[in-house]
Structure formats: C-alpha cells, structure tokens
C-alpha cells in the first residue's frame, strides 16, 4: 500500500504533523526511532520544571493522545536507514513515491511508501571539541538529561556543567535536585547576551520564571557560575578527574557539556533538497517556503530539523507542513486547525534561544592544534588545517584528504567544527565550504538485519562486462 503521507520523526513536530494529516482523512504513517513518540523534549524534559510542574508533561501527553486517536499508523522503535523515491529516479522518469526502509522494533526490515514525506528529524547536540573531550566522564547535555530523566541517574557525584543555552541551567538544577553536587556552571554566554535575549524571552513569562528558579537554586547551592567562559580542558588519568576553565581547576567526575543544537539534515540532503547555511538557525538547514515546502516536490520539513525554534514552536510548524502536504496532494482541508498568536511568541523566544546556542566562532578558533576534531577517525585540528594548505577547499574534499567525517557518525559530530575550521583556514565562509553529500544509510545498519534469507542462485547478478 502507498500511504498519502509518511512522517519521519515523532517529536513534537512529527506528532503534530501526523495528527493533523490523519484527521483530514489522509492515510498517514509515522516512523520514530524511540520506543514512544515524544522526541527530545518530551522524552527527556530537562529538570527545573517544578515552577509549572506539569506544563511540559501535559503538552507532550496532549500531543501523544491526539496522535493516538488520529488514525495514523504509528511505528515506534524503528530505525529508518534507507531512503529512495521522490526525485531519486532515473533521468527522464517522473518522481516516484517516497520509500523509507527501516528496521522494526523486532529487528525485522520493512519499507513504507508514501506520496508525500514530512521530515521532522529534530537535532543532534553540538559539542565544540576541546582537549580531553573524548575522555570517559565527559558527556553531552542531551545524554545527561536522558540519564537524569529517563533513568533517574546522576551523571556523576560532582559535576561540571558547561556549554551554551538554557539547557545548562536545567541540567545543573536537576543534578542538584537529584542530590548531586555541581562543581561549576560554565556558560559561554555573557550576562550581556542574556540581557539582550530578555525582550524575546518576555514573550514567554513561563520560561523566564523557570530560568529565575534555576538560577536561584544554583545560588542557594553556592554553585560558581562562570559567565562568558569556556572549558579549556578535561583532564584525568583514563577517566575524568578535573576540569580546567582558564586558570581555574574544578575537581569533577563528570562534565556535562553542550554548545547548542544542530538540525539533522541527513534525510533532506539525501533527497538533494536545497540547503542554506544559517548560523542563527543552527547551521545548515533545508531551504523552505512559507508553508514548509523544501525545494523537492512533496517533501516538507518542520520542527528543529528545519531550523532550531524550540519545542513550543514545533507542533504548529508540523501542522502547517501537514496542511501544505495535503493541499499539494489535493485533499480538502475543512478539518484543518487554526494556529493562534501564541505561535509567533514561541517562535520569537525560540529564535532568541537559538541565537544563544548558535555556533561560536571564537570557541572554534580557540581549539588547540592537537585536539581531535573527528573522533571516529582521530583527525586533529592541525591535520584539517594542513589539508586546507594542501588544497582541500570543500568539506567533501576535506573528507578525502583526511578521512574526517568518514566514520560511523558520518560527520554528525565533527562536520560543523571541521567546516568552520576549514573555512577559516581558507579565509572563506562556511557556506563556501559546503556540506557533506547525504547518502544512505541514515544510521549504520547491521548487515545481518538486512540480508534476509536468500539463495545464491536468486541474487540477480547482472551480465558481466566483456572480456
């Protein structure tokens, strides 16, 4: 069967998109990697929501409940690895239905086909490399929230929390609430930056109040808060034992660090949609029209994967993408929902936070020469700059010269820092350096799970070349 709409990703954007499309009568399937829909924020809400304890949980539950009764086919626990169809057809052929290959929760492979595809793939966390960032004991803020929230585990007994964005304060507050101690909070943003973000934040008094509570907690616990500062090194014998911030040294058994969120564009790149580099949106993003259309017919994107705007703005963007898709497929939209003014406020707040979490060029510039940038392949800053001198002028060529980005993460972790380093070494903009070509699999895929049972005789070996 061919669905009308397939939604990839079941965060707030994807849940809302699938719900909206299904209630207008479309045949909809939603594919999500986690065991339950929810996405980053609703699966792993950061701590410190006690001010309005149920707000996020309520919103997540409301989206989930609406999805559950929408009639959409919800497939969770499945890893989508293969993409095809759409514009990926031989020359001269009309576009095909989109086709997504996945491994189901039981490990069995399956493929879904749909006329339209809405990408709601969210983000991955940015960590700007620094000496020692690959030491055991150093983890991302996102991973820390999952530990804290989903498993009720502290990342360590004495933790340094560092990076940029509101998540810093949330994680620190949650560690305190869980009985851990926070050795220091190291915020890349200066207090001036926070002040400048205030006007946008006042659009969401609830968030402002949350922030105030988090900061009060830290104050009460006498946690040193270093503003406009960054971790210079994580050190220890095999595991982390202390964290350096300039001259200051903090004993710690864990460092939770994150420098913002990067839109996940693997799928839109694979479909060869147009992308633009917009630091304020998180980096490379698919170019969208006002109704969430990418440059590829019947391919849409919504939520943070299309530019970081936060969880509050994501559902409305998902719904808009769904309505546009249905319109383009020829559906009547009489059951469509109307968006309210709160959306615009959410977007403004989200944009202000996104700016705070944007890549900080100065931080990249400060990476020491021998620091590893690509941890899969062990490529250092010095090697990247050497490649730049040796003539590598694009990120794809850098891959060839150094293997940077060729490992299991396919540049998800290192691509951005490598691009920024290459750009500055060549004296050009990151936009000129380009992005790596998107190719399947979207995630490493075990051969055993895709091979299936087969007879040698059934392998359709093509005719041999002439001798």
């Amino acid at each position, binding site marked *: 069967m061919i669905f009308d709409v397939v939604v990839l990703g079941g965060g707030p954007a994807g849940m809302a998109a699938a719900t909206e499309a299904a209630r207008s009568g479309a045949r909809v399937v939603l594919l999500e990697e986690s065991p339950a829909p929810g996405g980053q924020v609703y699966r792993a809400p950061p701590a410190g929501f006690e001010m309005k304890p149920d707000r996020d949980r309520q919103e997540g539950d409301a989206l989930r409940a609406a999805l559950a009764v929408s009639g959409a086919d919800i497939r969770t626990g499945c890893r989508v690895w*293969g*993409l*095809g169809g759409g*514009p*990926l*057809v*031989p*020359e001269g052929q009309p576009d095909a239905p989109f*086709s997504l*290959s996945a491994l189901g929760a039981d490990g069995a492979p399956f493929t879904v086909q749909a006329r339209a595809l809405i990408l709601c793939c969210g983000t991955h966390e940015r960590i700007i490399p620094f000496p020692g960032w690959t030491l055991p004991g150093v983890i991302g803020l996102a991973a820390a929230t999952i530990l804290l929230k989903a498993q009720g585990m502290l990342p360590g007994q004495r933790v340094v929390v560092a990076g940029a964005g509101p998540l810093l304060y949330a994680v620190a507050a949650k560690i305190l609430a869980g009985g851990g101690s926070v050795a220091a909070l190291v915020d890349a943003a200066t207090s001036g930056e926070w002040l400048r973000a205030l006007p946008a934040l006042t659009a969401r008094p609830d968030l402002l109040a949350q922030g105030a509570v988090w900061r009060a907690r830290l104050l009460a616990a006498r946690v040193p808060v270093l503003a406009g500062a960054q971790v210079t090194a994580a050190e220890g014998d095999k595991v982390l034992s202390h964290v350096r911030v300039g001259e200051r040294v903090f004993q710690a058994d864990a460092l939770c660090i994150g420098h913002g969120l990067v839109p996940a564009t693997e799928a839109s790149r*694979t479909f*060869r949609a147009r992308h633009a580099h917009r630091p304020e949106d998180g980096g490379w993003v698919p170019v969208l029209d006002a109704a969430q259309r990418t440059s590829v017919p019947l391919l849409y994107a919504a939520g943070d994967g299309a530019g970081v705007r936060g969880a509050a703005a994501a559902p409305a963007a998902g719904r808009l993408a769904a309505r546009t898709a249905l319109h383009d497929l020829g559906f009547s939209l009489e059951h469509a929902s109307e968006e309210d003014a709160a959306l615009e406020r959410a977007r403004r707040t989200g944009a202000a936070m996104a700016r705070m979490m944007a890549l900080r060029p100065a931080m990249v510039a400060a990476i020491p020469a021998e620091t590893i940038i690509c941890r899969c392949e062990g490529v250092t800053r010095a090697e990247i700059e050497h*490649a730049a001198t*040796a*003539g*590598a*002028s*694009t990120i*794809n*060529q850098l*891959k*060839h*010269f150094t*293997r940077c980005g*060729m*490992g*299991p993460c*396919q540049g998800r972790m290192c691509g951005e820092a490598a691009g920024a380093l290459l750009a500055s070494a060549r004296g050009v903009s990151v936009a000129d350096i380009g992005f790596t*070509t998107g*190719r*399947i*699999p979207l995630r*490493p*895929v*075990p*051969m*055993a799970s*895709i*091979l299936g049972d*087969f007879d*040698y*005789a059934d*392998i*359709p*070996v*093509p*005719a*041999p*070349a*002439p*001798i």
Partner: protein
Amino acid sequence: MKTRFDVAVIGAGVMGCATALFLARGGMRVVLLDRGEICREASGVNAGTLTMQMTRAALIPYALRAHDMWMNMPAWCAGGDVLATACPGLSVAFTDAEAAMLEERARIRRAAGAPIELIDGRAAQAIEPGLADGVKLAGHCPIDGFASAYLTGRAFRAALQEAGVTLMEATPVRGIDGRFVLDTPAGAVAAQRVVLAGGVWLQDMAAWLGVTLPIKVLINQLVVTERMPPVMRTVLGVASGLLSLKQYANGTVLIGGGWQGIGDRTRGGVAVRSDNFLGNVRLAAHTVPALRQARVVRSWLGLEAETADALPAIGPIPGIDDAWIIGSVHSGYTSGPYMGRILAQAILGEAPELPLFPIDRLLHQRSNSA
C-alpha cells in the same frame, strides 16, 4: 590573456592528472582545469582495486605496468601516496556456469600476460581463509592489490604543483574556440594543444570540437562497512566480475563490483538502487560470511565512462591537430597513471612505450561543423 600554455588538460581525474604531470616533467607549460576539485569524480570515489582479473584482456599489459607504478607511487609522484597495497587476488566460481566462465576468462587473461592460475576451493581458502565454502574453482593472481582512491587528489596535487602545472579547480570549461581558447568563468585560457580528459563528460567535450563521440555512462554503486576485525586479506571477486571486496588496514571493508545505481551525466550519482544494494551485499556476504557481522556505514556512487566497444579512447583527435583525448578505460583507475604516461609520450613527440587506442574506430559520423 596573459599566458599561452603549451597544453591545456581538461579534467583532473587520474587520466588528466597523470597526463599533465608527465607533460610538465617533459618540459611543457601545462594548465590543468577541472570544473570541481581534483579527483573528486570517478578517480576519487572508485573502489581502488588494482587488479588484473577485472581488467579487459587487451589492457593487461598496461595494467601490469600501472600496478607497478601504483606500488611505487611516492617515487614518481613527489611523495604522493594512495596507500597502494599489494596482495593476491582471487576470482571465485560458485556454480558450474561460473567455473566455465572463469576458465575461459583466465585463459584469455593469461595469454595477455596476467599470471593467473586456476585452483580449487580448498587451495583458495588457504590463500583467503575468509572465503566461504562451496567454491568450485578460483582464479588466483599473485599480482593484485588495492588503493585508497579518496587520496588520489591529495597525492597528485603536490606533485603537479612541484612540476609547475597550473591547476585551476572550480573552473568549468564551457567550450573551445579556435585553436585553442578555452572559455571558462575565470576568463579565456589559451593553449597550443588541448587534452580532453573528462571521464563521462568526454562526449560533451568532444562536441566542443565538433566531434561526435558517444560515451555510455555507468553508475557504479559502492558500500563500505564500519571498521571490523580482520575478515579477509585478499582482493576478492566473482567470475562474472560483479563483486569486488577488500579490507583496508583500518578495518573497513569496501563492497563493490559495478552494480548500477541511479544517476546521469547531468545530475551525477543521484541515489543507490535499493535492489542492487541488497544484491551486492548479499553477494559479498555469500562470499565472505564474516561480513554478516559488519555494519554498513555508507554507500555512494560514481560515474564510469564506456565507449561503444568498451575499449579506451586514448590518442589524437582525428582531423584536429594538437587535440588529444584520454579516457573510457575499463578498470581505468588501475591503468590510469600508465595511460597518462604513454599519452604524454605521444604528445611530447616520443614513441609511446605501448600503443595508444586511437578513436578513429569510434567515429562513424563526424558532425558537419568538424
């Protein structure tokens, strides 16, 4: 127009790079242009098999000499290196039909100079312990090997510069006026001679000179695994030629063989065909069972050129003095550097060590403007 070069080489794949390098070493003022970056098309994305058992028989004398060049690349390429590794090559047959094909092909290739011997499955497993049971017959060639093709551009770049070649990347040639003024976005580039080295784009390039040279485009798929413990130590193929397998020193295994994906000259390599992806990895896992434990980390595509008779286009362009062509060489990575060397010899007025492959045979109709 500031400089008039002795020769302009258009297309910086392995063919263009090698030709340009040896022309410069021969004393010519050379400009090498590419519309993208050096060796980022076929020459930078190919499977890097340096093999006699996939090469067309007519090319074996060339491939043998080129194999030697690859293994000694730093010596003639100013230290440039593609990590070429020599190892035995095995081409295996699982069925009687394949065994018959293998026997015939091995005989022809042996006659052309490739030291291929036929061995049974047990002997093949002694050479390649990773090989599956059930092999009826195998062709064993002690001269085989592989390279990391993605390093090709880096390897040539320094040598080209040292030899004084003017390298113009990101400079698409749009046409050729007169003899010879190249039209590019960076302005006109003038040269006494021109060498077309445009891979699958040779057809368009020949048309600039009024020559109709049909070039077929193959869209080859490749798949690579994550690093894994050693599972094999040879270059492995099957009798039909539609498998090439090797494990690099870093533990990754490259799976290829010429299965076709989606793409064309205009859009490049667009996407992997999922049925061919599955066919290719099944064939690989059938041949080396330990690959069932692998995880696929990436797939990609590259464009390979083929003439009407699937033999190379290397030589002068008939009717146009000082215009030359090089490309469409089957297993062209393997023999690339040697092909560049002999074309350079011809352009420099020397007798090439081995004969070229003139394109007269391919030009049935010449267009009127020629």
